[in-house]
């Protein structure tokens, strides 16, 4: 009798405890690979870039779709999107969060909250910004294209700094400087093409202006966000930033190839010691050290002396390593920083030596 009762309880529980109630058909899920958040006229505009698959004569085709809704809060916009699509918004495959420059100037904690309560998302998605969210979301499979642009940049030029959600939350709450990579959507080429091609009908013209390709999305610069203010940082400065934060794989600075690099930042109260070991070709060894030191000094002067932006988050480093000093001088710390650069060059022989 007891065994029968136990068996019954086990069978009934298996219906509820295996997550069967949670079960959702794949075609009832809105699989989101990218989310865009814009802020205009006191309203949030949320874009969802979704991926769907359909079978066509035995082969599976991917179908990309962009949904857009406007509301006074982000969660309200998500609710409207759910009602519009009639599918559960599934963020487990979220790869990219695109925030417009206007959004970056608002209270970012509201952006964070809308993702924190969703258990499905992995917190490992990257964050970028763009000049035109609407156009970016029209590019076919843009999340993968953006990721491949960044991967290529990082491998070949080390001119890209990744920003994942966990780092974003930490920097927003701690009020640190955030560097957000920016994708520029280039619509000028499309407009020029349309002007020269007079044989197109009006309808074809309109279609052409809406179609963007991979060549129209480029990575040229990043954005610095600090206390709701934004500042641009160009390509070259991002390379120097990566140099100082030990994120260089391969790069080129002023036509000199750097093959590898190791940087250590040490703090001693307000003194910042930057120890750099770079791998370069033998032929560049004479001009490289002076050139790099000049670039680093220019970078540090621009951001620390002129713009007063703690771009390397050195205040946090001093807080972690020299708490007592930080506590005493925290209000004026940026003006007290004193940099010392120690550069060592490690030479890589080339196969061919050419002497005139």
């Amino acid at each position: 009798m007891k065994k029968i009762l136990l068996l019954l309880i086990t069978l009934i529980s298996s219906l509820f405890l295996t997550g069967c109630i949670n079960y959702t058909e794949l075609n009832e899920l809105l699989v989101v690979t990218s989310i865009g958040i814009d802020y205009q006229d006191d309203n949030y505009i949320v874009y969802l870039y979704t991926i769907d698959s359909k079978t066509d004569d035995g082969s599976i085709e991917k179908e990309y779709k962009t949904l857009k809704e406007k509301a006074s809060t982000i969660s309200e916009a998500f609710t409207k999107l759910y009602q519009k699509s009639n599918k559960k918004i599934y963020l487990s495959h979220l790869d990219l969060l695109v925030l417009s420059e206007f959004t970056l100037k608002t209270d970012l904690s509201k952006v964070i909250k809308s993702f924190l309560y969703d258990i499905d998302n992995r917190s490992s998605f990257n964050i970028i910004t763009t000049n035109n969210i609407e156009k970016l979301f029209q590019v076919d499979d843009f999340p993968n294209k953006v990721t491949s642009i960044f991967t290529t940049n990082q491998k070949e030029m080390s001119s890209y700094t990744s920003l994942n959600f966990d780092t974003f939350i930490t920097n927003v709450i701690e009020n640190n400087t955030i560097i957000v990579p920016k994708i520029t959507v280039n619509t000028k080429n499309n407009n020029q093409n349309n002007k020269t091609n007079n044989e197109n009908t009006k309808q074809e013209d309109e279609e052409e202006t809406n179609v963007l390709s991979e060549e129209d999305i480029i990575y040229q610069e990043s954005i610095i966000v600090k206390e709701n203010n934004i500042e641009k940082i160009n390509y070259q400065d991002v390379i120097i930033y990566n140099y100082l934060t030990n994120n260089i794989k391969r790069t080129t600075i002023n036509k000199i190839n750097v093959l590898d690099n190791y940087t250590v930042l040490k703090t001693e109260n307000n003194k910042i010691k930057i120890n750099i070991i770079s791998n370069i070709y033998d032929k560049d060894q004479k001009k490289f050290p002076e050139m790099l030191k000049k670039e680093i000094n220019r970078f540090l002067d621009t951001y620390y002396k002129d713009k007063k932006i703690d771009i390397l988050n050195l205040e946090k480093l001093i807080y972690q390593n020299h708490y007592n000093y930080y506590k005493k001088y925290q209000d004026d710390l940026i003006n007290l920083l004193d940099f010392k650069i120690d550069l060592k060059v490690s030479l890589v022989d080339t196969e061919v030596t050419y002497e005139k």
Partner: protein
Amino acid sequence: MKNKYSMFSFDTLTFFLIASLSSNIGYLTFIKDTKIDTIFLILIGSVLGLIPIYIYNKIISYNEDRNIIENIEYLFPKINLFIKIILIITSFLIMCISLKEISSFINIYLLKNTNTLFISSIFLLLVLYTSSKGINTIVKASTICFYLFVFINILSIVGTINLVDLNNLKPLFISNKISLLIDSVIYSFLSTSPLFMLSIIKKKDLNKKNYLKSNLYKTYIFTSIFIVIEFIFTLGILGITLLNIYKYPAINIYKKISFLNIFERVESFFAIKFLFYSFFLISISLIFVLHLSKSLLKNKKKDNLLLASYFLLIIFISFFCKFDFSIYLISSYLLGIFIPIIIYIKMIILSK
């Protein structure tokens, strides 16, 4: 002839009971005050926790043929009823709070659309069934679960060791020293109080009973080191800011585990270790409460009726009542410090 419990099984059960704090209220409660110095809080608290361990050992070893209930009846012939009632209420509250915590954890992370009441009921049924079989079953189950637990932890360490950033472990020594000391004392009795319920086992029922004292200390020290390492890992990966935000930061760390891009999205599997903690804590609490209740009622034939009534009462209290951290604190203090000290003092007085 009754089977004796092996020392290793007893140690694994002890391990789960000490570590259960991290799944209940959790040592993360202290982070808001002591921040990164929580590392020292756990270390100091673990050293202070050796005092209650000493007292529990003395109580278990007082008479090999008697368990705690028989000892209370012997030492306090007049007020044993009062002491038993306090013990029932405190262990009952700890049980309800643990059940509520684990049910809400399962509901949030594993079974989102399943009612918490249903989750609590099924979990409690499992505990009731295991407890009805006696301590022997629970002790054996803890041995099996321990091997799985070790496997899970080795995998999680291997999968996340490259994510640790040592800068997240700074700055140290910045929190208020007095609040650090007070919180260490609180931690010491929160982590050791479940062990008092092990005194329901008679010393003569333990295999190699002469090693009880040394094993208790060794297991406690081993578990404390494990908790410190686990905390350092968690802090090193997430940092203090994220640790303050996430209620179960371990789950967020498990989300990052990826072996060869094949073994991914495994946080549900790793979450099983929280189930182990709660299962053994609630099981031992239930057995403790059952034995105390039987001694009060003095009727052994009403086992099933007692189990059924406790089932309904636990479900009702854990589902409908709201618990504060202070209730868990007071219950742990009464169960783990106040009552044992009274028993110990009486033991010393009688021995003279």
